[in-house]
């Protein structure tokens, strides 16, 4: 048997199906357009984007690896390092700050015992500072794992959230 030197880096069939669906949105010769979707799907499955994962995406979409890396580092919601099970990103931009986001951010830091860009030792939470999420009216706003927006996050709601997220 020819034992592979490293574990095979591919993605699950479900993930690949999602990527294929994204690819189908664009003209056949423009597969690269699906790279953001593909990286998102890959990140959802793997938790973060390792070099190997990006290599795989590059191969899957027929792109130079560097071009994938360029994309992955340009958009802030891709994680190029492992993050906690729950990545909480809070918008601290001016409109939100005027509506309590600064306090909410402080409260989160203190409650989780970590600063921005850090992960709790138990690997549960990563806290990130975000830029405008286009939801200023609902400030303070948090995004959990890139996909779930949580609005009007008062201290009580933050308590409740932290309690619910295991």
């Amino acid at each position, binding site marked *: 048997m020819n034992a592979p*030197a490293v574990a095979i880096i591919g993605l699950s069939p479900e993930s690949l199906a999602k990527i294929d669906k994204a690819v189908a949105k664009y003209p056949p010769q423009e597969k690269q357009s699906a790279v953001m979707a593909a990286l998102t799907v890959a990140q959802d499955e793997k938790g973060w984007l390792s070099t190997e994962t990006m290599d795989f995406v590059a191969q899957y979409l027929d792109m130079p690896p*560097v071009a994938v890396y360029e994309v992955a580092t*340009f958009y802030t919601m891709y994680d190029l390092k492992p993050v906690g099970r729950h990545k909480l990103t809070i918008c601290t931009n001016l409109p939100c700050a005027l509506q309590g986001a600064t306090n909410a951010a402080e409260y989160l830091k203190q409650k989780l015992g970590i600063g921005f860009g850090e992960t709790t030792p138990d690997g549960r939470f990563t806290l990130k500072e975000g830029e405008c999420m286009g939801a200023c009216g609902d400030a303070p706003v948090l995004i959990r794992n890139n996909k779930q927006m949580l609005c009007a996050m008062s201290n009580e709601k933050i308590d409740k959230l932290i309690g619910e997220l295991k």
Partner: protein
Amino acid sequence: MPLEIEIDGQKLEVPDGSTVMDAARLANIYVPHFCYHRKLSIAANCRMCLVQVEKAPKPLPACATPVTNGMKVMTHSDQAVNAQKGVMEFLLINHPLDCPICDQGGECQLQDLAVGYGASGSQYEENKRVVVNKNLGPLISTDMTRCIHCTRCVRFGQEIAGVMELGMIGRGEHAEIITFVGKTVDSELSGNVIDLCPVGALTSKPFRYSARTWELTRKPSISPHCGLGSNLTLQVKQNRVMRALPQENEAINECWISDKDRFSYEALNSDQRLARPMLKQSGAWKTVDWQTALDFVAKELKRVAAAHGPQSIGALATPHQTVEELHLLQKVVRGLGSGNVDFRLRQSDFNADGKLAGVPWLGMSITEVSQLDRVLVVGSTLRKDHPLIAHRLRQSAKRFLKLSVLHAVDDELLMRVAHKSIVAPAAMVDALAQVVKAAAAARNSAVPEMVLAVVEKTQVTESAQRIAASLADGKNVAVFLGNFAQHHVQASQLHALAQALAEIIGGRFGFLGEAANSVGGHVVNAVPMINKSENVANAAQMVANPLKAYVLLGVEPELDMHDPRQAIAAMKQAELVVAMSAYQHKAVDYAHVLLPISPFTETAGTFINTEGRAQSFQGVVQPLGETRPAWKVLRVLGNLLNLSGFDQQSADDVRVEALGKEEKIVNKNNYLLSLPARETTSGSGLQRIDETPIYSADAIARRAPSLQKTRDGQPPVASMNRVLADKLGLRDGDSVRVRQGGGEAVVAYAVDDKLPGDCIRLATACEETAALGATSTELTLERVAGQQKVAV
């Protein structure tokens, strides 16, 4: 319709589609810039070229602003200069300003422009950015903190080299240039980014810290490597070549050179250089003076001629020798009464000899290559053997060119290949015959008589059909034979078929010249002249039927010849081997005298490139030690042999004698006049695909340490497809024992599923495979169990 524009008061007309920068260049007005480069796409990101345009509310970048009719531009108005100064200030705030220790110092665009546009002191008092340095491999040294984000290097990769090895990751102030994590830069054109980088972020690693630019004198030269004849500027300090740079020549290399042209110079200063004549006396090598050495050579040649007849003497030269050297070599040999002289060392099929009108050449000028809209390249490791011809094809492949490839390997060409046919070496003739047949059908024309027999009986496959259809609908078509086709055991058949194909589709055909002087060797008749009914041997015959005496001009037989095993055997049995070489090499084992001759930097000479252009050059440094230009050595040898016609005073005299006074491109034709005999090939069993690796092709490149450290310089491995590897039972960590022509080699293996079945790809021209016989001989493979590597 041309457009009128006024720049700095100067009125001129420019073609529609011009930018303000184009117009300024036409008007000879310098607009400062960093990101703009005329061979790259427009990025307009540095903003250094901001100029004032009448009626425009803000300054506009000259590089990206299209000229409109009646436009008025001021490149030095207050508004323009203010904007330029503002940009310069921004560029400098995060730049380390470490010019005294920077290799770019003295030739830095940022430094130059800062003098003109910078303020005396910076008002930036915040912390400067520091960027983690990157490892781009053995050729390019980096200092990314100096990067000004012009993205020239990134665009070069994408647009010229065809491979995006560099990218700019991150964004904003954190944006930085990288290669993909942990990978080095492997393009055969990579060194050009050093020239492109306007600051000292990307510099030459071999050149690092070795000289300051103002200490260097610049001398023009011509590349001695591939058939293109790239124009070089060699930079010299204290009689040492310190650096090779491109000399712009739009008709040949444009502003680029290959890495081989750029970094081979290291070998000129190699400690393997042979610096004094040496003579083997009672089994031991002794340093002698030239007089002694040449007296010995003359005496021995005369002796051998007298004892065994002049036909027992043969001379072999590499196609990297100059016109002057090759001319005098054949003159000496013929003067002695022998016709055994050849430079076509890797060729194995000589059936076209005597049937060729003219010489094998490109069949067109290099610039014409850029205009072709349909091309079939037969048997060529295109990127590695002809980096800049590949580049020209790549540029047109983006637009109008449909490229087809017929080859035994399916390497990434980094350009769009429209059609391909990948077959085992022995099937190449048939594959090309199929294309001929299909093309004749498509064009409804007769198959030329010469190849009718081969073509008639072939079955057209779909890939051949597609290639033929593609060629048939072109307007400007060519068929090229690459090095692999020229070395093929049925090279003359491929030649005849390529010629027939070109005839049918009304295109041209040509040879992608293997070496700097492949055309020149033919022009000066450094080949056995079969048509002159000499009783002569060609390069292959000279070693297959060993002679008594050999004169080797630059040749390392085990690395340069088609059958290394036979070549070495022939040398070992000879009574006399005269090795003329710039390097001390394996000849110490079998030669009787070693004569140190000048590499191209230490002599004047001429190369005739693949398009037939004769380019002469002067030496740029004094010969090393006792080294002498080979043309002088050969002239003196002619005198010592009492031959007539050896009174030339200079390389120039020799050139005029060989080529005549005309500087014009030599008039060529490369048509076969009659049908070459068919070589029968086995076509069954295992076959070897034996290319010459890019950095093993000639004596200089072989000894350039930095090139040898690149991926292309790694020791050869036997590649094969999975089926064959499984058949041999190969596992990770195993090696293969390759036996061919009575010799063997043990090498690592690799799986390449793009290879045709029952083939191994294993390079020639390397020490590791030098013991093997010719590729046409029988091949066997065997697993050599290795220690099982543990998965990591």
